[in-house]
């Protein structure tokens, strides 16, 4: 048994801090069950403010967990997001760790 991981089986350093943040966890939860969603839908479902959502979107995109596609519909900007394979794997891994201590 690897005693450095305690009885939980993983260390605090192994927790993905990108996913661990509650707002980003909410965003990834929404995107995980969909094939994509726009900015307005994410804002409606998560209850985050525009600025907050935008900031977390950037962090997730920088981590490679979501893909952001910006386009114009007529004259209005429209942003679509989808979770990447890397994002799904990170999300699954995080949930598995949390379930190991919560279930």
């Amino acid at each position, binding site marked *: 048994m690897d005693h450095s991981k305690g009885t939980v089986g993983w260390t605090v350093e192994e927790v993905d801090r990108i996913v661990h943040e509650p707002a980003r966890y909410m965003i990834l*939860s*929404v995107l*995980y*069950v*969909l*094939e*994509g*969603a*726009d*900015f*307005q*839908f*994410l*804002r*409606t*479902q998560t209850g985050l403010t*525009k*600025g907050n*959502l*935008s900031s977390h979107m950037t962090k997730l995109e920088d981590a490679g967990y979501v893909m952001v596609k*910006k386009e114009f519909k007529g004259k*209005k*900007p*429209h*942003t*679509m997001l*989808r979770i990447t394979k890397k994002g799904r794997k990170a999300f699954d891994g995080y949930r598995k760790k949390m379930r190991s201590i919560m279930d």
Partner: protein
Amino acid sequence: MDRSLDRLEKRMWATYQQDGMWDIFLGVLMLMMGLRMIIDHWIMTVVGLTLVIGVVIIKKMVTEKRIGMASWSSKRRSKKITLFFLILLANIATLLLIILSIMGVSPDRVTGALVIGGMILITFSAISYFMYFWRFILWGSLLTFAIVINEILDPDSGPLMFFFIGSAAVALGFYYLVIFLREHQSIKEVI
């Protein structure tokens, strides 16, 4: 997908039904059905269709703009297709009954009313199940009740029943619409 994520997906899907527009749509249909019993003129059908199309357009332009857009999973898309075929089947069955009636091969009033009422209830229940919108069962039950009462017990009560139920549906729909518009402000997106 585990159950908690499954529940999340269902709840998100159900948010599209929170705007009261389906209640208004069904209420308008029922009001038109009641009015058609009194004013037997083709113009009533045109007015009814126009109102129904108006409600559908408002849902697209008001509701969906406020909630936003999602690309649903293939599992959800297949449920939507099932729902579409269910509604199509119900419409085909109704059309067949009408054709049989025109040909003189129709059941007696009681059997006819019960068959149509049953079909409506089953269709509305199925739609309610797929859309996670319980009020469809409520309106389906009341509509079935109105048809049965009208056909079997008291033909004169038909228009009144449809007006009453239709008005209740429209009023409730507007109540939910006001709450929805207050909760979901339209925003300018941050680039």
